[in-house]
């Protein structure tokens, strides 16, 4: 005989304003099998929870219905309270009379009536609840970090320092990411390489980190605690176990005029190359597309001069299978290009010459011009003729915040790095003048606004609020035509160099990876966090976390903070030997299952398989569906396609649902 208690919450005014809670409690008391009912202002508060616990003991309740908010909000709270009384938490149900009643209705009489109906449904359901057991799944104590920029490195180091194993994957030949390309960093102007390269070395030498560079994620299957990942280690054509990184191959390679990715096209590199001197690992890679031997079948200069015989032209891509319990995605960003042929159909800037003038460069290129390791060894020289530019115009929000270009968001870091650029430029070219066209100066952050003021007040950058309509060449000069909206005048500046703070965009190849991982992304292809405020590093795929600019434009401090947060989440996950999850999974009645396999086809999570039932002699009796409880998400798709009604969903059985519906017709 069921003994059900009903607890009606006013939620302050939220429910009480539109639903007469005392009437709901009174009416509930009349329902069959309800032995106790009460209403209270804040049922989720401590006294509220005590009321529930006391009532369970005093009235010997076998089931509890809390009529309050959505189960998403407080089901956990109340189930925890119920559990403390030794009643199974699965015998507690929520009737949602807030989101589904008081918040959406105005008529108090009707709303009260509906609230009673909602309670009646749940009373019928909870009577048929069974004390389920949470599912326990084992955890592989190893994490995969995808991406070897500052976010990936920080996450890997933090996890490794927490004494868990990490596999780190980077698609390019070296880790370091964009931060390795930067000159000095705001707001303290410390050298980017100096603070990054020690971390790169640590990541490579840490006993808990296994680093794979020039490697991509091929496939991901499995679930939280138990991911099976296949990596594709791309052929480097250099045996990294033999190579000493001496660099003679680079010197001897006859192809020397290939535009260097690391130097953003402002420098050259050979076909066999180490991307930059501080690269980790310090192992070269052959650019197959441009290597003379691969193109013509002749050359092999690198092989001839390599005294360790490390060049392996017959190397092929290698596939590596690993098992991990958690994944951190830290794939970073790419800068928008103003050229004509852009990805995703995003338009270029015809009014700025579509990037065809060598002296109109983007900010990352300017970083390379400022960098001591850059193509000009840190001297500011413009690309066209090597002249030291005396007037430099900086344009902010190129692409960003521009609906016409399809990027309505703020790229967040440009205000700060442009201020930094004007400073560094002034420190190197004392007689030079920097102009900045901006829309708004967004310098929120510790010591950030002070930094911008310093650029303006001490280093004399002239800030003009407005957009630039056109840049064109007139002889030696670039004419920049813009508006100064504060003085309401048109401005024309004859510049030697123009630097565009172009938008931060998602990695162009992020979508296939996101799909492999089952991680959502927004319309700009930035990866989606599980909750914008309360779950900023989690994704909707349990066990997969985000760090850095793959989620949204971020500066270094923010990327590092998020990376450490992701690492903390991974360490938390790895701290348990087993994970607990809600037991709302499908189960098969093997006696009636005909083994038709419809459910296998229908399951979106690939959680269903065939299982052979054999007799003692090992003879096959029949095939039935088998549900992997670790993979099942309890969506119920299999139930709806099962023709023999041989599948049911724990916690939401057909019997429960039908009794809920029937209760409405009394």
């Amino acid at each position, binding site marked *: 005989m069921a003994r059900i208690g009903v607890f009606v919450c006013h939620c302050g005014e939220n429910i009480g304003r539109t639903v007469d809670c005392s009437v709901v409690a009174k009416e509930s008391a009349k329902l069959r099998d309800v032995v106790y009912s009460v209403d209270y202002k804040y049922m989720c508060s401590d006294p509220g929870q005590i009321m529930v616990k006391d009532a369970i003991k005093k009235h010997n309740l076998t089931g509890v219905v809390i009529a309050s908010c959505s189960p998403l909000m407080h089901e956990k709270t109340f189930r925890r309270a119920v559990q403390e009384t030794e009643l199974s938490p699965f015998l507690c149900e929520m009737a949602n009379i807030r989101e589904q009643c008081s918040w959406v209705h105005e008529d108090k009489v009707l709303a009260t009536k509906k609230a009673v109906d909602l309670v009646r449904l749940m009373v019928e359901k909870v009577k048929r609840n069974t004390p389920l057991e949470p599912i326990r799944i084992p955890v592989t104590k190893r994490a995969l970090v995808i991406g070897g920029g500052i976010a990936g490195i920080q996450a890997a180091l933090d996890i490794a320092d927490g004494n868990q194993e990490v596999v780190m994957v980077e698609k390019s030949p070296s880790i370091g990411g964009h931060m390795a390309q930067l000159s000095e960093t705001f707001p303290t102007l410390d050298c980017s390489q100096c603070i990054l390269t020690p971390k790169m070395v640590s990541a490579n030498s840490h006993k808990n980190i296994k680093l794979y560079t020039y490697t991509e994620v091929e496939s991901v299957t499995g679930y939280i605690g138990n991911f099976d990942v296949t990596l594709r280690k791309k052929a480097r054509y250099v045996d990294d176990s033999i190579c000493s990184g001496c660099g003679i191959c680079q010197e001897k390679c006859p192809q020397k005029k290939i535009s260097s990715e690391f130097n953003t096209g402002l420098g050259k590199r050979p076909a066999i190359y180490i991307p930059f001197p501080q690269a980790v690992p310090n192992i070269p890679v052959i650019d197959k597309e441009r290597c003379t031997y691969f193109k013509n079948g002749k050359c092999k200069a690198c092989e001839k001069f390599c005294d360790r015989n490390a060049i392996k032209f017959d190397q092929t891509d290698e596939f590596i299978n690993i098992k991990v319990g958690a994944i951190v995605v830290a794939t970073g960003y790419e800068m928008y290009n103003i050229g004509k042929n852009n990805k995703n159909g995003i338009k270029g800037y015809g009014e700025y010459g579509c990037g065809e003038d060598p002296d109109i460069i983007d900010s990352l290129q300017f970083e390379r011009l400022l960098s001591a390791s850059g193509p000009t060894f840190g001297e500011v020289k413009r690309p066209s003729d090597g002249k030291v530019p005396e007037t430099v115009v900086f344009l902010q929000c190129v692409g960003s915040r521009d609906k016409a270009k399809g990027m309505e968001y703020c790229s967040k870091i440009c205000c700060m790095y442009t201020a930094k650029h004007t400073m560094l430029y002034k420190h190197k070219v004392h007689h030079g003048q920097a102009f900045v066209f901006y829309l708004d100066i967004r310098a929120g952050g510790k010591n950030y606004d002070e930094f911008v003021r310093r650029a303006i007040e001490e280093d004399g950058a002239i800030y003009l609020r407005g957009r630039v309509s*056109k840049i064109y*060449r007139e002889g030696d000069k670039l004419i920049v035509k813009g508006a100064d909206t504060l003085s309401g005048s048109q401005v024309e500046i004859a510049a030697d160099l123009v630097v565009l703070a172009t938008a931060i965009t998602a990695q162009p190849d992020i979508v296939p990876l996101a799909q492999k991982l089952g991680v959502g992304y927004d319309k700009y292809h930035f990866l989606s966090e599980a909750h914008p405020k309360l779950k900023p590093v989690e994704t909707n795929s349990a066990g997969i976390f985000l760090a850095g600019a793959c989620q949204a434009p971020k500066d270094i401090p923010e990327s590092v903070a998020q990376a450490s947060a992701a690492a903390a989440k991974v360490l938390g996950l790895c701290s348990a030997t087993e994970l607990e999850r809600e037991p709302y999974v499908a189960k098969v009645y093997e006696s009636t299952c005909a083994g038709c396999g419809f459910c296998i086809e229908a399951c979106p999570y690939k959680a269903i398989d065939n299982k052979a039932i054999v007799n003692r002699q090992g003879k096959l009796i029949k095939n039935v569906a088998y549900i992997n409880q670790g993979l099942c998400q309890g969506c119920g798709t299999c139930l709806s396609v099962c023709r023999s009604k041989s599948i049911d969903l724990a916690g939401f059985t057909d019997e429960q649902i039908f009794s809920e519906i029937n209760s409405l017709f009394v």
Partner: protein
Amino acid sequence: MNYGYFPGCSLHATAKEFNDSTKLVCDKLDLELKEIDKWICCGATPAHTTNQELGIALPFANLQLAADQGFDTVVAPCAACFNRLRSADFEVKHSGYTAERVGYITGSRTDINVRILHIIQLFRDEYGYSRLKEVFSKPLKGLKVANYYGCLLLRPSLVMKLDDPENPVIMDELTNLTGAESVPWAFKTECCGASLAIPETEIVLDLSKKIIDSAKNAGADVIAVACPLCHANLDMRQKQIGKKFGADYSTPVLYITQLLGLALGIDPSKLGLDSHLVDPYPVLRAKNIL
């Protein structure tokens, strides 16, 4: 296929050479243009600056005429006519209220579907570059052309849908097909001052000077246009510009259809090359084109 031809007022008057060259070129290419019977004013700038509904109803009435006369495509060489026709069509198609009002004002149905093409679009999209390349018999080798697009042809780009409004190339592509060389330059889409020529002539002199200077600096022998007002401001004002700035201004300004006509071997006087204020003959002779 025949096209409803909408010449507009300019092509019957000040821009007669644009009309003549357009018709001669289309004749040669077997593109049949049939003037829309009883066409009326497109409204130009005055209509839409005085009354929004008038500015839509006038051009739309022309589309209704074209539809009634069985044309599914209207060709307009004048950039302003093209702009007004496209804009009216856009407004009517995107607002039920506007459609209703325009239907009431014109007393005719608004659920019509007439394509509106600019004359250069006819060459690019209907005739096609590959066929055009075949028919040019007199290549304009050695002639450097600055193609000037102005504003009305391209903007608002969402409505005009002709080319990139910041860095258009359609006229350059046509020019290059003739064997002439289109020069890269910065003032392709700068404002010529347009109708300010009447109330604020000085502004037009300043703006047009900058355009001509930019073309000359880019090494252009001639400027090509596809708009009667652009032509008027650039061709007609050069003497005044010269006077104001104390320099000689004599850069010929040709309609793109005149250039195409020359490449097709059409008699230059029939193309109206005699009617420009800056005489193009010396330059064309110097380049051995005539």
